[in-house]
């Protein structure tokens, strides 16, 4: 079994492990590429996913995250590079010989079978005896809290129930790695939030490695131990949700994960006095008065819009007629004596320590 040093503070968050523990590798991608003719769906991706980790692959559509998942599942073969699953080279190994199961975005439940038959399927094709597979399928149904729906057909269930059956169908095989391809994408918001909590709890209980593809950055941040951000077939950053949010390493990550005010080029130099592009989160900016201290930056502009979100409000401030800064304040903010109105000349400011440098100009 291969093992690598984990320098990852995110891991100890959920597992109570100290830093720098030996992490057992579940899946290893070595400079994996997948080309479709001229199109580079995946371009030299390397990553190491630890056993028992909740690992998300985040990116906009067409960024290569689903291709990456399909390569791990074995539905496609990498053009170059290699994939190791539990230390064994998986190149050329068909999906039915991999100890990996997938939950599909459209669930892909077999319409001509009952839900129980769907769940039993993986055990049946592997020749597990009938009594054992009935029992395990029933356990899996109970695990996803649908013990009474085994006799029905998938089309008789709601979207959320179908999603649970798909989960049970994958988990009944006791895979060491579970792949989830935007599993909550078709559910409405309330149900999605509920399923996020349940999925996370289930993963912690079972200790299975989850590789979770999503385009929803909120989902990735709230559920994952680590997140890999994909853009145009390349990996932008692999990090813990906290680091991804607080210390994005590229302009893309700063923009894609949460909301950021990213300033590049000449204006960055003018504002900060330093030759770096930078980003600053809206919640780190506030309305200020008076001159700046050495640790802070103040600039003046004009308030052009206010958006009310309930718990917080967002203020759009135009600087020097071209740059637009978002400022986020708690709606019931008592710190702000007098809140400005649209059209007012305002001064905004932030601490230099809250800024993230994104590379030299």
């Amino acid at each position, binding site marked *: 079994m291969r093992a690598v040093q984990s320098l990852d503070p995110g891991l100890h968050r959920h597992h109570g492990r100290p830093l720098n523990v030996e992490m057992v590798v579940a899946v290893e991608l070595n400079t994996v590429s997948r080309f479709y003719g001229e199109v580079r769906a995946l371009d030299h991706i390397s990553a190491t996913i630890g056993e028992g980790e909740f690992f998300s692959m985040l990116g906009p559509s067409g960024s290569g995250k689903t291709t990456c998942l399909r390569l791990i599942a074995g539905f496609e073969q990498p053009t170059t590079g290699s994939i190791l699953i539990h230390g064994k080279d998986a190149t050329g190994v068909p999906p039915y010989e991999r100890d990996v199961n997938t939950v599909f975005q459209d669930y892909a439940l*077999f319409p001509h079978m009952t839900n129980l038959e769907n769940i039993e399927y993986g055990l049946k*094709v592997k020749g597990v005896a009938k009594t054992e597979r009935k029992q395990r399928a029933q356990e899996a149904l109970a695990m996803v809290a649908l013990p009474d729906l085994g006799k029905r057909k998938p089309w008789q269930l709601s979207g959320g129930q179908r999603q649970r059956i798909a989960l049970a169908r994958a988990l009944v095989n006791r895979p060491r790695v579970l792949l989830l391809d935007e599993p909550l994408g078709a559910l409405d918001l309330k149900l999605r939030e509920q399923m996020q909590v349940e999925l996370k709890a289930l993963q912690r209980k079972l200790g299975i490695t989850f590789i979770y593809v999503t385009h929803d950055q909120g989902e990735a941040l709230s559920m994952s131990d680590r997140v890999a951000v994909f853009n145009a077939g390349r990996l932008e950053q692999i990090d813990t949700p906290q680091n991804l949010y607080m210390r994005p390493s590229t302009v893309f990550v700063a923009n894609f994960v949460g909301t950021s005010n990213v300033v590049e080029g000449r204006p960055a130099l003018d504002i900060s006095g330093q030759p770096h592009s930078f980003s600053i989160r809206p919640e780190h900016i506030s309305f200020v008065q008076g001159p700046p201290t050495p640790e802070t930056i103040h600039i003046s502009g004009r308030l052009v819009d206010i958006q009310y979100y309930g718990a917080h409000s967002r203020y759009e401030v135009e600087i020097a007629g071209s740059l637009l800064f978002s400022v986020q304040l708690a709606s019931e903010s008592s710190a702000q004596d007098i809140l400005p109105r649209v059209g007012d000349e305002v001064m905004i400011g932030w601490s230099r320590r809250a800024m993230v440098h994104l590379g030299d100009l």
Partner: protein
Amino acid sequence: MTTPVKSHIALRRNISSFLYRRSTVYLLLLLLPPLLWFGIVYLGSLLALLVQSGYTFDDFSMTVLPVFTWKNYQNLLLAANFDIVLRTFAMATAVSLFCACLGFPIAYYMVRYAGGWQRGFFYIAVLLPMWASYIVKVYSWTVILAKGGIAYWFINQAGLGHALESLLALPFIGGNTLSTSHLGRLLVFSYVWLPFMILPIQSSIERINPNLLTASADLGARPGQTFRTILLPLAMPGVVAGSIFTFCLTFGDYIIPTLVGPSGFFIGTMVYTQQGAIGNMPMAAAFTVVPIVVIGLYLTFAKRMGAFDAL
């Protein structure tokens, strides 16, 4: 004060809003012509056939009397006639099976692999033989399969002449030459009806979510298992539909049994003889009822076996 034009418009508006409110009337108006066609011309003629099969044929005067009798159906069970039914049934079954085995891979390839121009090519290639005259095709097959024909030449070139001889020596399959054997007849039938098998299978495979096959492999099923447990059951409605075509067409055909294969009546040739040469329309009608009954039984069986569960 309204002008005639305005009242005309008002009338039209009244009619259209009436039809909008009474959508069943609207639907009935739309459906009436095709329903009449289907009811009178289609089902009506079938009913006339059923009624005719119960009429009495007077052997002596060679005339049909509108007197009900079971005699025609009893005659079907006579050894000579039942032989015909069995022979046709066996051929129809063999043709359907052969067409399904040939058609399924082609249909699967058309749906899953052929894209763009390839797909268009396949459609045309499948349908192209149907553009040529049926009689011409069957006649040219007699030439192809005849001794000294292209088929024999190819088989001899491949050094399989002896294999063919021993194949033709087998009972039920064989005959003197390819063109006078049951095997040759099977080939021609399958050639002529293959498109009717491919197209329904193709459309049923098209409705199968490709992720289902991926999911099956993901759950550990080998390709053979996926075919047996997922692909075939889900494509079964198409196979059944296609086999109904090949089955019925073989049951009703009288040209291929006349031109290719050994002597001996088929239901088609028997019907032709009964109603043409002898004028025994009731017996011909009774023979025609056989495929209807067989297909009915076949569909019931297919439904019992769960062939339509995927619909």
